[in-house]
């Protein structure tokens, strides 16, 4: 049995008393690539945010690398890729400066960056194919390139676990390919991945297991569900997973 990386037991999350997740249990072991699928508003993003402690649990527990989340301090083992880059107040920042933030967890915030940090940033920029844009302001990049910047930031910290929140939503095909390549490399080196997705696209071959979240609970945990209906047509690569008890018309329209 491989060591557990993420364990969620009976996790529950609510916003202002409205339950978003109820009684969710999940286990991700080292080397797995787990996709969290589900419709918009199903609670899939909330699930990964709860795993990282960005939203508080109202019940249950989260364990990261065998340590309760409350007492987890080894954040250099975790790389987080949010849905999008915050707009910020308009102060420019170069791609390299954003990616360099990814070194803080490993280096500690009181120590100035050294040669090892610069080398790791270079490597991460090359991994996502943005080495030639390192000096450009991130605001001038396309949406897909900004997303690749965020992945490079997570990779720069040399994490063991990557947590990605809809990394390919609204991203052009070239960036999706670059992203899938970076992810394959990360997995080949023994990394563990938990990613939220609405559509898998070129990521599909990398995924080892899929979890489908529906109305705040997990309704499928196993192989990647096959697309159904007209979603199964060859030119349509959306994965809209179904739950057995779900009304069919939601998807058939």
């Amino acid at each position, binding site marked *: 049995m491989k060591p557990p990386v993420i364990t969620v037991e009976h996790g529950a999350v609510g916003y202002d008393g409205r339950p978003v997740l109820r009684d969710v249990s999940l286990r991700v072991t080292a080397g797995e690539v787990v996709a969290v699928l589900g419709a918009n508003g199903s609670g899939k993003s909330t699930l990964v945010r709860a795993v*990282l*402690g*960005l939203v508080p649990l109202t019940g249950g527990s989260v364990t990261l690398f065998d340590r309760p989340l409350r007492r987890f*301090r*080894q*954040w*250099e083992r*975790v790389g*987080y890729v*949010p849905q999008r*880059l*915050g707009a*910020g*107040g*308009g*102060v*420019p*920042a*170069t791609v*390299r*400066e*954003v990616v*360099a*933030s*990814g*070194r*803080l*967890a490993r280096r500690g*915030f*009181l120590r*100035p*960056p050294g040669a090892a940090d610069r080398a790791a940033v270079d490597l991460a920029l090359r991994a996502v194919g943005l080495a030639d844009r390192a*000096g*450009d*302001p991130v605001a001038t990049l*396309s*949406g*897909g390139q900004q997303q690749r910047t965020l992945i490079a*930031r997570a990779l720069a*910290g040399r994490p063991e676990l990557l*947590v990605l929140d809809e990394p390919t939503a*609204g*991203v*052009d*095909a*070239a960036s999706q390919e670059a992203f899938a390549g970076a992810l394959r490399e990360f997995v080949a080196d023994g990394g563990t991945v938990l990613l939220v997705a609405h559509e898998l696209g070129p990521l599909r071959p990398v995924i080892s297991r899929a979890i489908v979240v529906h109305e705040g609970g997990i309704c499928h945990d196993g192989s990647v569900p096959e697309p159904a209906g007209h979603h199964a047509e060859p*030119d*349509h690569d959306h994965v809209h997973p179904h739950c057995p008890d779900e009304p069919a018309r939601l998807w058939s329209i």
Partner: protein
Amino acid sequence: MELFQYPYMQRALIGALIIGLAAPALGIYLVQRRLALIGDGVGHVALTGVGAGLLLNRSPVLVAVIVATLGAIGIELVRSRGRTSGDLALALLFYGGIAGGVMLVGLSDSTSSNLNAYLFGSLTTISPADLTTIAVLGAAILVTMIALRPALFAVSHDEEYARVSGLPVRTLNMLIAVATAVTVTIAMRAVGVLLISALMVVPVATAQQVTRGFRSTMTAAMALGLFAAGSGVWVAANADTAPGASVVLMAIASFLVVALAAGAWRVLRRRTTPTAVPAPEPHEVVLR
């Protein structure tokens, strides 16, 4: 130039230069987290501290540091809760601060010119002891803002990512709040409570029109702050104008010059280089 032979003018110049350098070094983080006007709010609160100091016959600057720090921490707590009523809570704090200050100064037996000195600055009345305070606190702000730049940048740029990086986000936010309060109170003597925010924000706004990165923006903003402070005091000495207002007007003048020059440069470049239309991203869905 002979005016600068007088010690009080030298103190005015040195004090202004220190503040001109330190204020934008902090201000860049405030601009990045969309809190450009927070300095203004903390300034209002500091005025209550001034009033309390004058009333209690204690050093107004010292009491103002304490009251402004409490105010800044209060504002940070409201901000981090992210409540929609935060806006109104801030308004209450700001206007309560300035009303309290005016009332307390009135209750003390100091004259109205004393209140003006804090509202609009009074560089030429800086004592050697004041200058020491400005130098020590200004240097502390400067060193902290530069040494912790990677962490403060990360927190201001993407707070959630900073949390997942294990950064002490709450402590760093409090550090910025306290640094704001300290900067406001030392700048109070130079440009006054009502004009402090300008020195924190305007040099950053000027710099970011021509810079590409965070580090270069910070460096350029500090240089611009230094220039505004030096040239403002020089103008004030020669034209006998209010030093605080002169410093701020120099900062705004450099903003206008840089904005116009950057605009002209962009137009020129568009004319000389063939139109570089960014390639559209391919469709993500098959259109039928």
